[in-house]
């Protein structure tokens, strides 16, 4: 089994890409810009979705929440990948990625049931989130297996010690 950080190699790239897409959607939301490449069909139009009544939660654009999520995932992934002694553990990243995917699925439900149209970039963003979740789950599993590996028993007392030592 590979070490946990090995599974996280693609995650920073995916998180950067997700942050870029979310950043574009934030600009799209605030500028009321209707990007034509986003209007693929009458049922596939991120301009309409991103400027609808569902595009904000408590005054915060959902794209901005996505941007924050991807940036935090990026920080966690870089910590786990690059630091010799990471401050965070894979389970923390797994929990955040799971929350992000759940939020993305909620937005997909809104598009499907309330708006009856889809946002292409939001779907790409959700796919990125699911991919990050999958890699993080592998890292978490690997980390858990590593933690559960049998530890050699410590000697019960000091000198004179047991006659055998692993």
């Amino acid at each position, binding site marked *: 089994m590979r070490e946990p950080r090995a599974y996280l190699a693609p995650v*920073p*790239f995916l998180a*950067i*890409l997700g*942050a*870029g897409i979310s*950043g*574009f959607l934030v*600009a799209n939301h605030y*500028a*009321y*810009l*209707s*990007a*034509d*490449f*986003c*209007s693929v069909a*009458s049922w596939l139009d991120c*301009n*309409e979705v991103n*400027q*609808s009544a569902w595009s904000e939660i408590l005054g915060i654009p959902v794209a901005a929440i996505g941007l924050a999520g991807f940036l935090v995932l990026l920080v966690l992934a*870089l910590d786990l*990948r*690059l630091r*010799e002694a990471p401050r965070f553990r894979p389970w923390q990243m797994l929990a955040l990625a799971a929350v992000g995917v759940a939020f993305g699925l909620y937005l997909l439900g809104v598009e499907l049931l309330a708006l009856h149209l889809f946002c292409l970039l939001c779907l790409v963003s959700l796919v990125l989130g699911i991919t990050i979740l999958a890699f993080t789950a592998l890292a978490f599993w690997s980390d858990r297996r590593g933690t559960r590996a049998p530890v050699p028993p410590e*000697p019960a007392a*000091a*000198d*004179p*010690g*047991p*006659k*055998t*030592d*692993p």
Partner: protein
Amino acid sequence: MKQRECPVCGSAVRPENLRAHIARVHPRAEVKADLPKPAAKATKPVRRLSQRRRETWAYVLFTVIVVLVVIVALLPRGPTVAPPFSLTDVDGAPVALEDYRGEVLFLDLMSTSCSVCQSYTNGTLKTTYSTYLSKVQFLSVDINRERDNVLDGNFRIRAFMQTYGTTWQYALDTDGVADKYGVTGTPTTVIVDRDGKIAYRHVGYETVDEIAGQINRLVT
């Protein structure tokens, strides 16, 4: 399995664990025997550092590429000289760019189905039109995202005009105006000056004050 005897307690210990065993179990014992070195990983940290540096640079480079792509996607595109067009308005009257030469033209490139265009018409254009009626010519062109024929398109535009109570000139884009003006999204506002040059261009919603600032620059 190869094992060595601990010089202090006599336990059988793997050679690579002997040093750690003595340090842990007999911390005060002074052992001068030549102990085998623990499993050496002398070269690994150096290799890892180099790998990490390369990886960090890869992340930085990828970030720069993504940021550049996003900026390019957000940049407005379009010509500086207003491309000529020739249309027929919803009442059947011919309308061409040349007709506005010597006047300031407020060109609203829109789509009746675009929700931002609807709020822009209702919230900004109606007020702007009533304020600058005598100084500026107004023309709204529906870019025909629905790909309607002229009859259906004009019917749709008339319904839009009735819904929002607009009274200025509207025409269906039958001359590729959206392509000529590089429309990347709606609403696109283009203000053409008296010389036929594009003096202002904006994609998206704008307030009355923002529009007024641009028009005042040209009509005073």
